[in-house]
């Protein structure tokens, strides 16, 4: 069992009502040091999972907020290896399960390829991987089995337009983790309201998928999390975490603390 699985077991045992929280950080944004401090603070303030995004030049599933953060981090010269070193330090410091989120080319071009990427992620203390542009049907890259073999939880993604037959194919891939349900068609980015019908879409997913489910894209406020109670195991807050940092004007850790606290209430 990895840390994600342990946390999922624990969450189940607690029989908690409100969803658990997964937050998001772009490594190297605003700087590597600050992004590391933000990860640690999000975990301390109550996030049950934290996504560490390795910046990529062409993040096709991300909206403006995260895309700009990717670009800014790259402009500052952040390297993939910096992310691995930072992740290793963080994993030694926080008990919260950490996941690498990135795009497939980063894993593909990693020295030693996808296999080495998975191995080194596990060795750095990562518990899971989120790669939006690798297909659930992939048979060429061996991504799913490589990740599972290194005791990582590769997180498959489902969307409101995923047909039931595909959901059935997705379900077994989530055996060590959860299914990441995209809340609506679109890219990442904080929104004011949740899409209509989100609850019933999630309920439908849960009829097909036995593993826990998470929902992300657009979730940014405490009321959103409240509204998701009973429909999802995990709420994912991504772009909003970056918006908070952008708005904090320097005192970013304090802003992170109160934001996470408001989401966990």
């Amino acid at each position, binding site marked *: 069992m990895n840390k994600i699985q342990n946390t999922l077991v624990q969450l189940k045992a607690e029989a908690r009502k409100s969803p658990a929280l997964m937050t998001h950080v772009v490594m190297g944004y605003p700087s590597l040091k600050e992004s590391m401090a933000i990860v640690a603070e999000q975990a301390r303030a109550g996030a049950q999972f934290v996504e560490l995004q390795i910046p990529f*030049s*062409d993040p*096709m599933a991300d909206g403006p907020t995260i895309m700009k953060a990717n670009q800014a981090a790259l402009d500052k010269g952040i390297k993939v290896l910096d992310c691995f070193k930072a992740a290793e330090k963080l994993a030694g410091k926080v008990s919260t399960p950490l996941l690498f989120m990135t795009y497939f080319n980063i894993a593909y071009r990693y020295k030693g390829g996808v296999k080495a990427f998975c191995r080194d992620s596990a060795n750095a203390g990562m518990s899971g991987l989120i790669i*939006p542009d690798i*297909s659930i*049907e992939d048979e060429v890259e061996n991504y799913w089995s490589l990740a599972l073999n290194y005791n990582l939880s590769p997180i498959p993604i489902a969307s409101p337009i995923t047909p039931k037959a595909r959901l059935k194919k997705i379900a077994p891939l989530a055996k060590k983790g959860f299914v990441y349900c995209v809340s609506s068609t679109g890219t990442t980015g904080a929104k004011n309201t949740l899409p209509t019908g989100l609850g019933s879409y999630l309920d439908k997913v849960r009829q097909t998928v036995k593993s826990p489910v998470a929902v992300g894209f657009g979730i940014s406020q405490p009321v959103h999390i409240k509204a998701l109670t009973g429909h999802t195991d995990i709420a994912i807050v991504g772009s909003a975490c970056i918006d908070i940092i952008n708005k904090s004007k320097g005192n970013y850790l304090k802003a992170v603390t109160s934001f996470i606290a408001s989401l966990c209430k």
Partner: protein
Amino acid sequence: MKKTNYNPNAAGYYGPYGGQYAPELLIPALEELTACFLKAKSDKKFLKDLSLAYRDFVGRPTPLMLCENLTKHIGGAKIFIKNEGLAHTGAHKINHCVGQALLAKRLGKKRIIAETGAGQHGVATAAVCARFGFECVVYMGAIDIERQRPNVFWIEQLGATVKAVNFGGKRLKDAVNAAIKDWVTNVRDTHYLLGSCVGPYPFPEINRFFQKVVGEEIKSQLKNNYGLKPDYVIACVGGGSNAMGAFNAFLADKSVKLIGVEGGGFGNKTGEHAMRFKGGKVGVVEGYKSYWLQDSDGQISDTHSVSAGLDYAGVGPLHAYLKDTGRVEYDSARDKDVLAAVKLLAKTEGIVPALESAHALAKAIQLAAQLPKTKTIVVNISGRGDKDLFILAKQFGDKEFIKFTANFSKHE
């Protein structure tokens, strides 16, 4: 992995290249498009509609012309040009635009989006949307908009909306990114009219299918009008659609040498060229595996070409496979040789080629000089140069034209 005759396998791979590396949100749309395409390509009614659109809207067949003056000037192999510049809207792009518009109709889509670099694909997309009744949005990098304002104007006159892309390098790759994001958001009612033999399967195959008419015409025109067979077919390679069109009919006949020409820019350093096959490595970006100009971490590099249409970090997956198998040879042409080629064709044959196409021409000029008169070269002139008016005037240092643009707004 079974492969026959350069066809993709069921998962959309040409050898190791291609595939469908797309977010889950797009998979249902890609599957729907694949099913529609596979059915349409052998459907009599669809093929009839397509050939009528080629004939009456696009203006096919486009001419194949022997460049007698140019050939004499160089004194080597015979140079023919396939003049796609005479296709409606001025380039080969219209071929896959009409085809995809007909597919989008079958899919019941209401809206079409596209990316554009030089603006040619944008103009062609806007034209087919007007003709076939689709709402149309074209994404274009802010730098390309500056370079290709006339095409922006025409896209808008054709009833489409141009959206400037202000992130990244603000060029073709970023426009592709923006279009993908739009498609992800509006996938239910929108067709993404991808403008080259790139992107996740089935796009490279769809555009090859709608472009292959170019090579088929080359083959029959050369035979019927001149009693010849080409020894060489040369085309420029951005994403690779015009080259795929010109090459496809000859892939099986190894006696025909095929040469693809990339944007050589002005130097070999990162950001000075777009030579994917010289400076690139295999990567997975924008939904497909191919050669990409990228750094050691896999971050996509900046590119440069005097022609916006070749200024792109990736290259179509079938080209990557043709490169590895050696079936097609890839070379590049520098900006300055390309500009000289534009001038030469204009002066000798009365035809101004697009800057993109002039890359193929520059290679042909160089090659013809080394070959005997008995050899036959066909150059695919993928587009006409009208769209490059402002760049050419600037590059040629035409003082009067520059004065004209400065004074133009002062006069009524």
